[in-house]
C-alpha cells in the first residue's frame, strides 16, 4: 500500500478512534457518577 494512502487512512481512522474513545468514555463515566 502506498505511503500517501496509508497516511490518509491512518489520520482519518486515528481522529475518529480518539474522538470515539473520549466521547463515549466520558459519557459512560459521567453516567456512572450520576
Amino acid at each position, binding site marked *: *500500500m*502506498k505511503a*500517501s*494512502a*496509508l*497516511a*490518509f*487512512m491512518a*489520520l*482519518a*481512522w486515528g*481522529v*475518529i*478512534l480518539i*474522538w*470515539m474513545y473520549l*466521547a*463515549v468514555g*466520558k*459519557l*459512560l463515566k*459521567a*453516567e456512572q457518577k450520576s
Partner: protein
Amino acid sequence: MEQRDRWATKLGLILAMAGNAIGLGNFWRFPYQAAKYGGGAFMIPYFVALFLLGIPVMWIEWVEGRYGGKYGHGTLGPTFYLMARESVKPRTAVIFGMIGGMLAFSVTSLLNGYYLHIVGWSAAYTYFSATGAYMGASSTYDFFVNYIQNTPQVLVFWAISVGLLGIAVGQGVSKGIERWVKVMMPALYVAAILLVIRSLTLGSPVKPEWSSIKGFEYLWEPRFSDVSWEAALAAAGQIFFTLSLGMGIIQNYASYLGPEDDVALSGLATVSLNEFAEVILGGSIAIPIAFAYLGPEGVKAGVGLAYLALPNVFMNMPGGQLFGALWFLLLWFAGFTSAIAMYNYLVALLEEDLKINRKIGSAIIFALYFIIGLPIALDKTLLLLTDLDMWVGSYLLVVLGLFDIIVGVWLFKPENFWEELHRGAYIKVPEWVKPIIKYIAPLYVLILLGKNTWDYFNNGTITMSQKYLEYLVNNEALISTTTEYARKIVIESRAVIILVLIISAIEAYMAIKKKYGEELEKNEVIIKL
C-alpha cells in the same frame, strides 16, 4: 401533563441514536463517494463538513427534540411552533410549525416508504445468501431483476421486516425500541468487524495485482485534482445523509429525554459512533472485497455494488454463503435501526396528536407504509423509487435542515439555544463554536440547497423535461422502458409528494391549534414551562 415514555439508560439512548444515524448509506454510499471524489483527499471536505455542518445541526436537533419533549411533543409541528414564538407572535410561529411538521411527516412517510423496500431486499438477500440461492447464477443482475419482478416474494420480505418494526415500535420506547437496539447494534458492529477481518485476509484470489489491500489503496490514495466544489458539496450531502439530519427523527428520539439530560456530549458521542461505522468499517468492506475479485472496474458500480456486484464476489469466495449472509444481515440491521426511528415518528404523531394507543397506531402506520410502498413494489423499473429519492431523500432533508437552524437557533434566539445546549451538559462547548452554529452552518446549508436547486433546474428534474426522462430511462431504470412510462411515473411521484405535503401541513396546523388554540386566538404566549 401526562408522563411520556423515557429512555431507560443512557447507553440505550446512544445506541438508538447511533442506530438511527447508521444506515445503509454508511456501508455502500460513503465508500462509493470517497472513491469517486478524490479518495483519501475526499476526507478533507468530508471532515470540514462534519465539523462545520454535521455536528452543529446534530446539536440543534438534539436541543429541539428535548425542548419539544418538555412540552410533551415528539413531532416537529408543535416543537417548531414553541421555539419560533420566542421571536414572533403565535400566529406567525404557527407557520414555522406547519413547515416543520409538513417536512418531517413527508420525509418519515415517503422516504421510509421506499427505504423499507431496500430493508426488505436486504432481508431477502440474507436468506438467498444463507441458502445459496444465487450461487451459480449466470448473472447476478438477472437474479436481482427476477427477484424485483416477483412482487409476492418482494412483499413477503418487506412484510417480515415492517412487521418486526411494528412490533418493536408498538412495545414503546424504553420497552421496545431501546431493547431491540441494545441487541441489534452490538450485533451490527460484530458483523461489520467480522467482514473487515475477512476483507483483510482475502489476499489476491483472482489476479496478483488485485487484492483487498489494493482496494484500500484505491479508496485512500489521495487524488487532490478530484477535490472540486462538486466534491465539497457531495461531502456535505453525505454528512447530511449519514447523520440522518433533516428528517425529524433525531428530535423525536431526543424528545424522550428528561429536561435536564445531557445533549452536548451525547450528540458528539452519537456522531463518533456513526463515523466509526462509516469511515472505518464501511470503508473497509465493500470496496476492498470487490476490488480483490473484480478489480478497479468492478468497484465503479455505485450503489449497485451492494446487490449486484458483491453477490458475484460471494459466489466465488470461500465461505461465500456465510459472508454473503453476514453482509446482507449487516445491511438489514443498519436499515432496520434507521427505519424504526421514522416509524416511531409517525406513531408518536398519532399518539400525541390524535390520542391513538401506541399498538393501534403502530398497526395504522404499517397499513400506511403498505399503501405508500405498494406502487413502489409494483414499479419494476424502480423509477418511482428513484424520483421519490431525488426529492424526498436528497432535497427535502436539506430544506428541513435549513429550517432547523432558522427555528432552533435564530427564532429561538441564539442565547436561548446556547443555554439549552448546556442545560445538564457533561461538557462545555467552547465559545468559538457559537459563530459556526449561527452563521457558518446555515451558510453551508444554503449553498448546498442552492446547488441542488440549480442542478435540478439545469437537468430538467423540476420541469420533468425530456432530457430528465431520457436520463431516467437510460441510467436509472432497472429494466428497459420508455420515456412515456417514465413521464407517467414521475407525474405519479410528484402528485404523491404534493398530496402528502398538503395533508401533513394541515395535520401540523390542527395539532398546534388543538393544544395552543387559545394562544392563536389571542395571538399571545400563554403556556410556558
